[in-house]
Structure formats: C-alpha cells, structure tokens
C-alpha cells in the first residue's frame, strides 16, 4: 500500500455462543484471514498468548472448531495499572463446505498465529479443458 495509514486498534470481539460455558471465563473471537488458492483454503487466526500445546482444532459435523487457551499463571501476583485490552481464551467456528477434504486438514502454529490449511477435494480443483 502506498499511503501509510495509522494502524487501527480493533477491540476484541466477545464470543456469542448459543450454549453457555461451564467455565466462568471470557472467550474472544480471534481475528481471521481466509484466502483461497487452487489447491486449498487457508485460514489464518491470530491468538496471541496461546502456545502450541493449548490449541485445539477439531472437525465435527462439517463444522471446524478452533480453540486456544491462555495460560493465566503468568499473571499471578501482577497488579493491573493501566490496561487497553482484555485477555481471555479464544474460540471460533467455521462451517465447511463439502468441497473440503475434511480428513486432510493441516495446522501450524507460530508466534501466536495459527495457520490452517484446508485442502480441496479433487473434484473441486479447477481444471483446464483442452480444446481439440
């Protein structure tokens, strides 16, 4: 982008679920980027503060559920003085179309960013038609 715009701060969006949770903690929706190329759909989620072991990705009934849990033990004994954002666990769900090969989903996590690769089934990949 040629012009330098100031970065806007996005307030975290709280998750609105149809069912209540049994844990009295706040859950936020991580920011997601979704892009598509020929072979796969890629979903990138930002979950700062979550390490690899605390991420849960599962597919159930054609719905992709992503969850990330924060480790709050680091905040023990800290007294908040000035805060600009809140912290909590992360959760977001996406419904998958049947064009995704649900058993071949791959996930990678680095620096709080989760990269999910959802490969398309063979029939959904674009095919060029030869002209005789």
């Amino acid at each position, binding site marked *: 982008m040629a012009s330098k715009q100031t*970065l806007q*701060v996005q307030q975290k969006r709280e998750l609105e679920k149809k069912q209540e949770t049994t844990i009295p903690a706040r859950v936020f929706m991580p920011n997601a*980027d979704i892009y598509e190329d020929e072979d796969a759909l890629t979903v990138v989620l930002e979950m*700062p503060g979550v390490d690899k072991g605390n991420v849960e990705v599962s597919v159930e009934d054609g719905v992709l559920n992503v969850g990330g849990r924060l480790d709050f033990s680091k905040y023990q004994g800290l007294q908040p003085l000035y805060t600009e954002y809140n*912290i909590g666990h992360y959760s977001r769900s996406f419904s998958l179309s049947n064009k995704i090969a649900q058993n071949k989903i791959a996930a990678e996590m680095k620096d709080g960013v989760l990269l999910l690769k959802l490969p398309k089934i063979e029939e959904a990949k674009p095919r060029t038609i030869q002209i005789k």
Partner: protein
Amino acid sequence: MITAFADPFEALLNLQRELDARLASDWLQDLTTSRGPFPPINVFQQGDDILAIIELPGIDSNDLQIQAKENTIRISGKKSVVYPNRVSVHRRERVFGEFDRTLTLPVNLDPDRVKAEYRDGILALFLPRAESDKPRTIKIN
C-alpha cells in the same frame, strides 16, 4: 495485591474484571505520547517494578525495535502479513502496517536492566524501577 485464590477460575474472572475496570484508568494521566494507538498495551505492577505486556502476533523480531530512556519506552516496528501470490481473499481481519508508540511512565526506570521477551505473540517488557527513584525511609533523631 492479588492474593492466590483456591479456585483458579475465580482468579481468572477477577483478573478480567480488573482489566475491564482499569480501561478508564488515568494512572498515566495525559502522559502517553503516541503516534497512533496500535499496539494496545497493558501495564502491570510487580512489587516495585513495572511489567508491560503487548499483543503482537506474527512479528519477526528483526522488525521490532524497543528503546528505553529514563521514564519512556518506545516500541516501533512493522507488522506484516504475507500472502502467497495469486490467492483470492475471502476475509481479511488481521491488521498490518508500521507502528511507533511511546509510553511515558510516571516513574523512572533503570534502562540497563530492562528486559524484553517475545513469545507466542506476546511481547513482555520487564521495566525495573531505578534505584534513585525508590523512596527512602528517613530516620527521626
């Protein structure tokens, strides 16, 4: 001081409540000189020292500069989001761009002992208070 609760979920809920309550805190008065509000910073106190926690997922440590001086901290850098070529974007929610933010604290720091740690997208700055800034008790003769 936050005391240790027997129920860990209580502690978590209390922490989130306190964070919300201080969103309107004027502890920094009008001293936060910033060029733009990004990235959002949380400042905690640990004993005499200050801990600043900033969420910056997906940053390369080469793109990040931190400078400390008497009572200011400056965090600047570039958050970039890279896509491969020839992709069709369905949704774009992540922010990216350059940022430069200066935080002026009402206490003096010891710049030599400032420590920064970047892990899992969280930048934690440990800011120890300068020895000269700590109050000294005075004995009465």
